[in-house]
């Protein structure tokens, strides 16, 4: 009698738990990176060159004898930092555009929607690449480019959430009470869509981390010798047979981080929107 009940209760949060657990580990590693890393990630000859993983160097060493474990751990710091900055900036700008489009009148709505839709029809990788090509490589420029590449997505999300709110009685009541659009959005609409926006932000986060790694891998993002995961992979390419660990561990780090936030975002979205969950996820 007990079994089915217990199983049902455990099923839904399993995704959440896995995502949350992995994400917690990644965030903890990123925050505690300076404490966890046994070596300075930039210190050359911390060990022999291209040494295989051992107790002294958990992930082995790279072509300059730098400790790969310390570099990957510090890379978490960098990647999550870039991801967070890009998501916050992209969400702020995109969210604002979406809300303005929904509440600033028909003409503004039509123009903004056209622009958002235009940008939205291109892959975000391409938008980030195009921007970074003109801004020039580097940590800050890559972050800006990734933030901008997320703007159409967030604008679209904010717009559709806001349009759904626009039709609700409380908005009409507020309007009839003489409240202006600006105050209406700030005081009444924002608290109602804030939660959903934050859930969608989680999904942009994993995409931002992948873009950052991709840009750095191509040499257009964070530059070596910074221990960014994509940058480590790019330099490790030349040692693919001699020292495959230089490629394995940073790659696994990217996968684990992106997977964590994908799982988290997916499951949060399902939780936030039970309508979409109920018919589909039964037992999945």
């Amino acid at each position, binding site marked *: 009698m007990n079994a089915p009940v217990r199983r049902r209760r455990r099923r839904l949060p399993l995704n959440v738990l896995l995502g949350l657990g992995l994400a917690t580990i990644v965030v903890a590693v990123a925050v505690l990176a300076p404490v966890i890393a046994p070596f300075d990630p930039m210190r050359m000859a911390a060990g022999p060159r291209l040494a295989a993983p051992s107790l002294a160097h958990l992930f082995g060493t790279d072509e300059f004898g730098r400790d790969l474990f310390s570099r990957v751990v510090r890379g978490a710091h960098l990647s999550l930092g870039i991801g967070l900055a890009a998501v916050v900036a992209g969400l702020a700008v995109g969210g604002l555009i979406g809300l303005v489009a929904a509440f600033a009148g028909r003409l503004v709505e039509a123009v903004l929607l056209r622009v958002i839709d235009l940008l939205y029809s291109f892959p975000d990788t391409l938008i980030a690449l*195009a921007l970074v090509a003109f801004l020039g490589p580097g940590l800050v420029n890559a972050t800006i480019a990734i933030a901008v590449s997320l703007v159409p997505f967030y604008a679209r999300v904010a717009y559709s959430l806001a349009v759904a709110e626009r039709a609700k009685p409380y908005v009409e009541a507020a309007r009839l009470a003489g409240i202006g659009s600006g105050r209406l959005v700030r005081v009444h609409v924002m608290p109602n869509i804030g939660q959903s926006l934050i859930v969608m932000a989680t999904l942009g986060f994993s995409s931002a981390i992948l873009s950052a790694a991709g840009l750095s891998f*191509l040499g257009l993002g964070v530059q070596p010798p910074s221990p960014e995961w994509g940058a480590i992979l790019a330099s490790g390419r030349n040692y693919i047979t001699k020292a*495959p660990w230089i490629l394995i561990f940073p790659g696994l780090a990217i996968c684990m981080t992106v997977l964590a936030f994908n799982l988290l975002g997916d499951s949060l979205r399902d939780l936030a929107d039970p309508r979409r969950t109920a018919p*589909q996820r039964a*037992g999945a």
Partner: protein
Amino acid sequence: MREKVAAQPPDEGGGTRGLPLTRPSGTLSRKGRGGPPSRPRRQTDVETWVAGMITLIARRIATAFMTILAVVVLSGLLVHVVPGDPVTAMMAQSVTASPEVMAEMRSQLGLDLPVWQQVARYAGGVLTGDLGTTIRGNEPVARLLLERLPNTFILAASGLGVALVLGVPLGFIAAINRGRLADTAVMIIAVLGVSIPGFWLGLAMIQIFSLKLGWFPVAGTNARNLVLPALTLGLIYCALVARMTRSALIEILAEDYIRTARARGLREREVLLVHALKPALISIVTVVGLVFAYLMGGQVIIENVFSWNGIGRLAIQAMLQRDYPMIQGFIVVFATSVVVVSMSLDILYGILDPRMRQR
């Protein structure tokens, strides 16, 4: 890496990696897909359908043209987001950069004109097939890009083929076994697919199949070299296809006519193959354009991993050298390819969907 918000299908996929699930109205929307309003004259169904199709095609071509024009203007404007002077940035690595050379380059690129004139000049050039000349080598950008474009299309089409061949059956299996082990397994593959960086998978492929086993060459651009990059792209994007197929089929299996078919006592296999397959394939056509756009985006990186001589590789080289005319040209050519492909698929969908013919 994002999912589309407008007209969202009941799908939990796509969100990861930010892939939109539906397209903005410019590219794949269903807006304006209906035939013309009924006229007082009597018309046969066929005539109505043909008239509807012509309207649809004309509208799609007009939207596509406007989109491409907007991209041309945007990429013309991009040079002006460069902090400082673009010529200084471009010549940073050059030893021969005297003030005279730089002034000459500035006027050659039209950078001494007002911004709107520059953009108009660029747009005018693009419309006549002139994308300018490269800074390094002084070669026509349009020719270099067009030479490489077939390579890019071959790889993109092969990658898309692999993604569809793997993804559609996986999505079917998941939808049919919804909630069971097979479904969970497919969904795990799907979430892994959107979490693995394509370039890392590509490096793993090179390590295993080229270096260890020696089955394929490491780099280059011919038929044997096509296998690994196409497989890499296909494996990454089959996750997206599987998710979309799964949710499309789940939606279809909930339709009344499926229940009717089952109630009539048809075997499950018949229900699936006769009644569910065709509408499912039709809705897959609508997302193929989307998958293609994202695949092209990912391909820019994959071409560089495998040294595949497509426009993506050319573009990254230009980006590293800050060869702005080439980068602008790449953006225009890439965007045009994406727009033309989604426009064609949109029209194809209009032809395939029987609901079109009834209007």
